[in-house]
């Protein structure tokens, strides 16, 4: 098997995550989809690391995880406060950005 397949898998997972972001309304699920996209990127980074024969790719993946953690913390806090005020976790309810 060619290790390039890992990249194909990463691309597939990324696309699924992106589509999920577009079709789901629940903010929590939306966030999960974002996590899925990030994980797909990480897989690609790890595969690249193997391809180039150095550890830089893994370091980047490591940083991605840290940033993802920070993002999740803030994002979920936003969802909680949004739920408190609107009693709903649906992103479509927060549609005030129009005339």
């Amino acid at each position: 098997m060619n290790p390039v397949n890992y990249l194909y898998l990463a691309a597939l997972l990324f696309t699924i995550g992106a589509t999920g972001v577009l079709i789901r309304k629940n903010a929590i699920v939306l966030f999960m989809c974002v996590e899925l996209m990030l994980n797909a990127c990480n897989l690609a980074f790890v595969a690249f690391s193997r391809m180039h024969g150095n550890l830089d790719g893994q370091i980047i993946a490591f940083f991605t995880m840290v940033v993802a953690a920070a993002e999740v913390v803030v994002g979920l806090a936003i969802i909680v406060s949004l739920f408190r005020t609107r009693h709903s976790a649906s992103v479509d309810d927060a549609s005030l950005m129009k005339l």
Partner: protein
Amino acid sequence: MENLIALLIAAPLFGAVVLLCGGRRLDKTGHWIGTLLAAVSFGIGVVLFADMLGRSADERTLTQNLYTWIPVEGFQADMAFQLDQLSMTFVLLISGVGTLIHVYSIGYMEHDERRRRFFGYLNLFVAAMLLLVLADNYLLLYFGWEGVGLASYLLIGFWQHKPSAATAAKKAFLVNRVGDMGLSIAIMLMFTTFGTFAFTPVFGAVGETSEGMLTAIGLMLLLAACGKSAQVPLQSWLGDAMEGPTPVSALIHAATMVTAGVYLIVRSAAVFNAAPDAQLVVTVVGAVTLLFGAIVGCAKDDIKKALAGSTMSQIGYMILAAGLGPIGYVFAIMHLVTHGFFKAGLFLGAGSVMHGMNDEVDMRKYGALRTYMPVTFVTFGLGYLAIIGFPGLSGFFSKDMIIEAAFAKGGTEGWILGGVTLLGAGITAFYMTRVMLLTFFGEKRWQPDADGHEPHPHESPKSMTIPMVILAFGSVFAGAFFEIGERFLKWLEPVTGYSHGNPPVSAMTVTAATMVMLLVGVGIAWAMYGRRPVPVVAPRGSLLTRAARRDLYQDDFNHVVLVRGGEHLTRSLVYVDHSLVDGVVNGTAASVGGLSGRLRKLQNGYARSYAVSMFGGTAILIAATLLMRAV
């Protein structure tokens, strides 16, 4: 010495600032401050004059470069002054007569609660006029020119509570704008032609310039002069300007404002000398105005308006003389100076009469005032003798010189112009005699005013009579002083140049003819107004009289041609604007609006919807990248 030049302007300007910004606390002292600063300016002028006399004719021009006003590459305008014999003459006239009028106003405006402001405006007027005559380039001259326009607007409309005064001020301002446009176009033409607008380089470069361009510049300068000096066709504001307080009329007619046009033409002598066509137009304008003003002056019953007509006519003389070229420049200025004396005296006298007659201006309601106002009568009378050219008085010399110069133009032109000036002299004698007879002689024709107060004519206070006496003195002796030994000619010749021309008849003949015209004019006036009693209500009069009473239909002409025409033009422009311009604009706006309305639907507020757009955009970007790599 040259450092004093800026002070000439600075003194009255400082006065204007202090008086206009000083507020009520200066109400008690404001008129003294204003008068003092005008006098300071005159004093500096005298010092400079003495200094100038002490030098030889070649070294008399002083210049002072204060600072660079507009420092732009290729467009250099300096705040620079030039004081030569011509400017000096004007400085002394403006500040001298101006100071006398200030003194006169102390008495005349005594009961006006806005006297401080009036003196502020007067100072501003003097400062602007001094800036105009002292500038060493056309742009700075334009600055002073506009300053004069502003000050005249403020002063003519000083009694702004009277709608007629406010309208007259507006009229003067607007008519002046037309002339100012001429000046600005002339300056632009100069800049494109010569690359500069300072006097010396412009006059130096005249030789290398095409005559057509010089004619254009000259005509534009003439338009400017017509506006300021009330020459046909921009004469209509002068009569209405009588709505201002009488000292203002005196200032406008004698020392400032109307003389600016003459100054401009004489100053630009180099341009006009090289453009004979423009000169011809100048003389024609002068000749037409001369007769126009004289005819209007004959018919007016309002003493100030009669005098205004006479001013128009006298300025016509000057413009005509200035149009004659080197033959006439000196005499134009000489007549301007003597006219400054006697016209200021006449206006101040008229103001004095009105002061004693409850502000009545209709001469038909005067009569027999000579015993009630002896000082006014004598000073006014001397001014009258001067203006009609009584032998020995100043008007005699200066006007006679202009008539001689007009004949000296030579050829048919010379005969026509000479004839016109002679005729003008006769009419002048007629209408001035009429004013004199109606006002001071005959029987009392006084009427109670609207409130029923019977007028009690009385002599005016000292502050008013003393300036009148001084001016009368000038009216009597100035001409003789200038003429004996040709002093004035020698004084001005280095600046303006002089040539004798080729007079077809001897000077004595011309003088004799003038005398004849003078006697005829006085005689007719005497026959009409001296021998028989004057009706209080003006008779209907002949067609010409009626026309002259209406200023020869100048306002009707303006109304029909300019106002109506303007209205039609505006209406059609409005139509074009509504249908075409607005149509295009509104159409564009409507289509953009419609498009936006459709695009707005995309902004549904759903974050996911925006995310789709983003995602699709990313996909397109990647596709483009791949495509470019593949290509």
